[in-house]
């Protein structure tokens, strides 16, 4: 196929993704003087960040005076089972209060304490009440604030409903990307001097997920194909509480805020089963523990009628529930015909978040390919083996800003990258791979292949994994890869807003993520955080300080262990220190 005509658009910093991380990066880069272009698959303001409900974690000690960045750091590291990038965890804990207050100065509105400070709610595995929130719509508040800030910041432009399908390099560094517009299938070649990936996670490779159609792991796949290293890909988070019934809404998130506000988990016998799994923290244990507990109860035959656990908040006053959890109240009433002020909810684990992703430098978010940066869910390191609730929103703000700053600086030092000569053959090959499904009207349906990928991952890489199953899953994913390579669009050959064609490309991203997950999970022969193995049920000391790194080689995907550098003494002390427990009576 000859080279398709495309429009060329030039900028300094290209940002992929318009969720919290992408917008925060765009604002930072523009404020540093760069021209910034944000490219996103959906409309502006619809990114997955809107789904974040509970709040943003920041040690502002507005509610518990004992809180400090050290405690937040320690909680994050312990939650991540110590395989986190400790420098990222330190920066995150130190800087998130400033990022939250800055958001307020940009117009964000948070719930208040009686003294008029930002209120903070308790959340799983956070020692102190730490989550700044507005009801249960914190993500929406965050994205709307950043969206308005971004569109009113000079130098920021947004291209909506545009999907990047290949990163382009020149002279060994990132120099652009090529994309198609969803509306008409036309192509755009972006030239840039630095590129920030902020494209979110890959939850869509599972059948039951809280993620939207967008979460197909594009960023990790693009980075991998460009030669960047991925890290901790075996670590995906099952959120303990997704809706289970009716079938149509299965997987939709039920905020941890319900438990933060006192919600209690019970099995079908009415037993508060968390007593048996984490007597101290109970429902507010870390997500990996609660998710596995619910899973175990269901497997032991103590599940609810639709295969989950009961989550009960009815002991709270109806008005309180409606104020603090308004969208949960609405969601259950509308979608499940359940009044949560009177009846318990039925919940079960749902795929929610990828802790793993692009390997980045802690200070700058730089990937291992020059000119490439990553922030937010697509990056890895901060959360280690398990993410604490509320740490994703603070992650977006802290590392979105850092990546944006660094990308702008990079664009200033290396402006020539944006005009360096590109490899035309590489572009042509990428374009013909993208358009090939349109020329195969009789090819296999991408929707069907997607469903099969989801079935394979759900069956072979579930909440508790097993070596031979993972191996079998890997073989299935490789077979699916072969089929996806020659799939069609489901019948239609139009380029005009053709979701079948779009899905055919999404499959490629999902398959890279699925393969990286399975291969890393096979290598990590122990149970740690979100990664549980029935054949290796205990943590293994030899792997306690190891990340698994995924890289592309000539012979395919390779996974290798890498030792984590030891923590400096003052951080190690912060982790080991025993912090006073929070008792609400002391305050207010």
């Amino acid at each position, binding site marked *: 196929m000859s080279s398709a005509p495309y429009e060329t658009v030039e900028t300094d910093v290209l940002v992929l993704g318009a969720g919290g991380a992408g917008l925060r990066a765009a604002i930072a880069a523009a404020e540093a003087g760069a021209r910034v272009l944000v490219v996103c698959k959906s409309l502006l303001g*619809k990114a997955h960040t809107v789904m974040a409900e509970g709040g943003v974690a920041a040690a502002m000690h507005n509610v518990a005076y004992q809180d400090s960045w050290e405690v937040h750091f320690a909680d994050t590291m312990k939650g991540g089972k110590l395989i986190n990038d400790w420098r990222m965890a330190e920066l995150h804990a130190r800087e998130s209060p400033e990022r939250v207050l800055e958001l307020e100065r940009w117009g964000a509105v948070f719930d208040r304490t009686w003294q008029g400070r930002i209120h903070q709610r308790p959340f799983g595995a956070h020692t102190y009440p730490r989550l700044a929130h507005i009801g249960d719509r914190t993500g929406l508040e965050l994205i709307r604030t950043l969206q308005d800030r971004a569109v009113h910041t000079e130098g920021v432009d947004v291209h909506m409903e545009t999907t990047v399908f290949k990163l382009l390099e020149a002279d060994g560094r990132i120099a652009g990307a090529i994309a198609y517009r969803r509306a008409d299938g036309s192509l755009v070649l972006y030239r840039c001097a630095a590129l920030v990936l902020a494209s979110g996670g890959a939850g869509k490779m599972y059948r039951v997920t809280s993620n939207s159609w967008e979460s197909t792991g594009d960023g990790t796949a693009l980075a991998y194909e460009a030669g960047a290293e991925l890290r901790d890909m075996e670590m995906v988070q099952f959120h303990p509480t997704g809706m289970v019934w009716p079938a149509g809404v299965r997987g939709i998130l039920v905020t941890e805020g319900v438990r933060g506000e006192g919600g209690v988990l019970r099995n079908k016998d009415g037993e508060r089963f968390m007593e048996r799994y984490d007597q101290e923290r109970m429902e507010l244990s870390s997500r990996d523990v609660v998710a596995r507990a619910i899973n175990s109860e269901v497997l032991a035959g103590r599940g609810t009628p639709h295969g989950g656990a009961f989550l009960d908040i009815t002991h709270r006053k109806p008005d309180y529930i409606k104020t603090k959890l308004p969208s949960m109240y609405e969601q259950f009433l509308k979608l499940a015909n359940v009044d949560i002020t009177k009846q318990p909810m039925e919940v079960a684990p749902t795929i929610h978040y990828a802790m793993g992703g692009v390997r980045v430098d802690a200070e700058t978010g730089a990937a291992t390919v020059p000119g490439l940066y990553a922030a937010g869910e697509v990056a890895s390191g901060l959360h280690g083996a398990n993410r604490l609730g509320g740490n994703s929103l603070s992650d977006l703000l802290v590392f979105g800003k850092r990546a944006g700053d660094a990308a702008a600086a990079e664009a200033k030092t290396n402006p020539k990258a944006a005009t360096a000569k590109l490899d035309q053959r590489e572009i042509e090959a990428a374009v013909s791979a993208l358009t090939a499904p349109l020329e195969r009207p009789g090819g296999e349906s991408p929707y069907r292949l997607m469903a099969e990928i989801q079935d394979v991952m759900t069956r072979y890489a579930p909440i508790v994994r097993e070596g031979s199953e993972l191996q079998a899953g890997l073989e299935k994913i490789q077979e699916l890869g072969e089929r996806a390579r020659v799939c069609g669009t489901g019948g239609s050959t139009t380029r005009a807003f053709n979701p079948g064609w779009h899905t055919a490309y999404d499959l490629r991203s999902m398959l890279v993520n699925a393969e990286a997950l399975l291969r890393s999970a096979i290598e990590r022969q122990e149970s740690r955080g979100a990664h549980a193995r029935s054949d290796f049920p205990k943590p293994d000391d030899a792997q306690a300080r190891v990340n698994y790194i995924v890289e592309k080689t000539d012979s395919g995907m390779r996974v290798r262990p890498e030792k984590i550098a030891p923590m400096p003494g003052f951080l190690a002390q912060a982790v080991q220190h025993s912090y006073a427990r929070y008792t609400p009576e002391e305050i207010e």
Partner: protein
Amino acid sequence: MPTEISNLDLNIWRGDAKGGELVSYRVPVREGMVVLDAVLWVQANLASDLAVRWNCKAAKCGSCSAEIDGFPRLMCKTSIAEYGASVTVRPMKAFPLIKDLVTDVSWNYEVNKQIPPFTPSEKDMSTSEPWRMQQNDVDRVLEFRKCIECFLCQDVCHVLRNHDLKQQYYGPRFMVRIASLEMHPKDVLDRKPLLKGAAGVGYCNITKCCQEVCPEHIHITDNAIIPLKERMDDQYFDPVRAVLRRLGPKSPK
């Protein structure tokens, strides 16, 4: 649930700006199915190129707006069980059609750019202390901040839908936006000239249709538009003030 039906005849508008028609698809019904599930089932099984926007599937992002049996609603929040054996889904009418259920809503984003953003006082900006606000003051704007930008209110507004006065009136969504800024405890900018001028709040004649279709139950007319109209009227159309303005010293405020 009123009736147990096993199949649904889902009529979906198919076509683009040049023209199109309703196409009927038979969809097997599952318990608890919403309209978006049915549409996506059609897409996966019968019409691979059916264009539809959706994201969160939990009524939080406001992407899947459409007219369901003539009423503007979110497809992800509309249960099939509310309808009989057939239901018709059309794209929003107030915006130019791109394809099938997808419309060009970019005008809304242009409008948003024209509204001066959140502007705190010099004093608030210069202090290094974290701001204090009271919950009561926060509660006042909370309702407006719930907006998920589904644009259903814009779709139903007759000023935009029937009279296509997009150049004269920003529409209900942006009255809510302006209200959220004007009533923000820390905002000090005066947007009344904007309301009277380009935003065109005077075009609203309070039929409250927008309020009726809002999936977030924002009292758009009662709590946003009417108070904004009052503020504008106070400044520009109060006869007593007009006289005072003529007699008294410059600018009574």
